[in-house]
């Protein structure tokens, strides 16, 4: 099997911010290595201050790594010609105050588009983000969600191979979020790669093929979303034809009994169901939510629990 081509790679990238006279150093990113393959939707997670935006800004060449390096579409970070094949949506998007279509065309022109192709592409992306009716409206009068839509449109105008999105749905209403999610899935189907930084873990869980979790500048977990969510430690068994008290902590509904056992006890539990004359309906490794994994890895379990109790 051929290895997937990496479109975005960080190689031991470290970024330190120094105070004015270099007395204090803040290490925002610490020996960070990551490879994003072509055609995947990659989720990039981390609490505030984890270094996500720093990593993205390194990839876009806005800043230089203190140590290490990286590549964007096969070119070292900071080579602008690679940006022609990249769409970037910054966090808290800020745009020049002018008509939506005119603005999208301005950004398209910066990427070398011109003439009829640019006009068509601008119209198409405004249609994609649902703002075709507001194409003449000045973006300074747009709501935050609409601005986010224009930000997405300017990122898509050059039909990018790689889309880097920093909190793309943070200001969107639920319907717009669904639309963006569908757009991302369509883009993946078209062979595009999406690098998605978001706080909305449920969304990451829904669309991302792989996920990386960053904490205090270090990569603490990376892997396929399905693998991360699936734990082999506990298994849910659903059985029919056994008594509710046959196992501890069971729940029953419509004659079907559910209970969870540790993986080590799975075999014994199944044999017990059969020995009791019951029928096993399903055996499923228990899934955890990305939120649980995220909180566990970033050390916020207690905080989350105490927050929940309040």
């Amino acid at each position, binding site marked *: 099997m051929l290895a997937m081509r990496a479109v975005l790679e960080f190689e031991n990238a470290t970024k330190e911010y120094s105070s004015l006279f270099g007395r204090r150093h803040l290490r925002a990113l610490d020996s960070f290595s990551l490879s994003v393959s072509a055609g995947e939707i990659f989720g990039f997670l981390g609490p505030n*201050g984890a*270094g*996500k*935006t720093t990593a993205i800004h390194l990839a876009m060449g*806005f800043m230089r790594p203190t140590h290490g390096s990286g590549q964007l579409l096969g070119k070292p970070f900071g080579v602008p010609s690679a940006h022609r094949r990249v769409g970037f949506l910054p966090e808290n998007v800020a745009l020049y105050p002018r008509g939506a279509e005119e603005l999208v065309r301005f950004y398209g022109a910066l990427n*070398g588009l011109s003439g009829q192709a640019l006009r068509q592409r601008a119209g198409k992306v405004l249609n994609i983000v649902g703002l075709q009716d507001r194409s003449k409206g000045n973006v300074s009068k747009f709501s935050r969600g609409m601005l986010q839509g224009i930000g997405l449109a300017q990122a898509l105008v050059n039909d990018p191979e790689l889309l880097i999105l920093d909190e793309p749905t943070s200001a969107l209403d639920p319907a717009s979020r669904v639309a963006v999610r569908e757009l991302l899935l369509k883009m993946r189907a078209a062979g595009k790669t999406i690098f998605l930084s978001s706080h909305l873990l449920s969304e990451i869980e829904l669309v991302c093929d792989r996920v990386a979790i960053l904490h205090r500048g270090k990569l603490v977990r990376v892997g396929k979303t399905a693998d991360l969510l699936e734990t082999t430690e506990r298994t849910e068994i659903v059985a029919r034809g056994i008594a509710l008290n046959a196992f501890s902590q069971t729940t029953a509904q419509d004659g079907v009994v559910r209970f969870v056992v540790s993986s080590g006890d799975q075999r014994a539990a199944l044999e017990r169901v059969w020995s009791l004359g019951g029928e096993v309906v399903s055996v499923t490794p228990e899934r955890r939510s990305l939120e649980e994994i995220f909180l566990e890895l970033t050390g916020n379990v207690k905080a989350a629990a105490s927050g929940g109790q309040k």
Partner: protein
Amino acid sequence: MLIAINFVREQRWPILVLLLWVLLLAILGLTTSEARNGEDLLFVFKQVALYVVAFSVFFGSSAIYNDRRSRRILSVLSKDVKRSEYLSGLVLGITITSVIYSFALGLTGSWTLGEAGFRVGHIWFLMLCLVAACALAGTVALMFSTFLNPFIAAGATAAAMGIPAALSYGLGVSQLAYLIPVYPLAATVLKSSFNVPEKAFWFPILLAIAETLAFLLLSARIFSYVDIAVSVE
């Protein structure tokens, strides 16, 4: 060019304020007797002309800062735009701004001062001096603003332009003023008069153009090492 036009559009209100001064000169031209008040008109003309140099320093020192503070620079530099192209766009924008102003002032000056007996051809030469001075002053300010706060950058620019001129006076070495020839160019405008036959001295203009390019290259070099965005997390 796109960045230059964008810059001019962004600065449309300061440009309009500048053009109000030109309007003032036009009103003075309408309401005074040129033959009697030619000297007064020339005084106002010189004063109004020099405002644009100060504005160019202001534009140059604040352009990058404004784009960074608003985070709009991220959307621009995330495209196929080199940092040197971005800076070139800003310098071109500052120059276009000064051309717009100088053209309006040149037209008004040709009409008002021309009627009072001032040689019209020389007014346009003075406008060229003004544009060259603005381009250089704006580029020096832009160069300082790549690594300094805009207020300090504006101060540093004033010092860079003023110290050679002060030294040339203090030491009596006139060539020193041409180190950064904004002052000699401004002085050409300031010293113009009805009485003295004026000669077009092109050297400072050519030097200013060459230095504008040199400072632009220096700015691009410095800016290529600067981290654009600070962490927002």
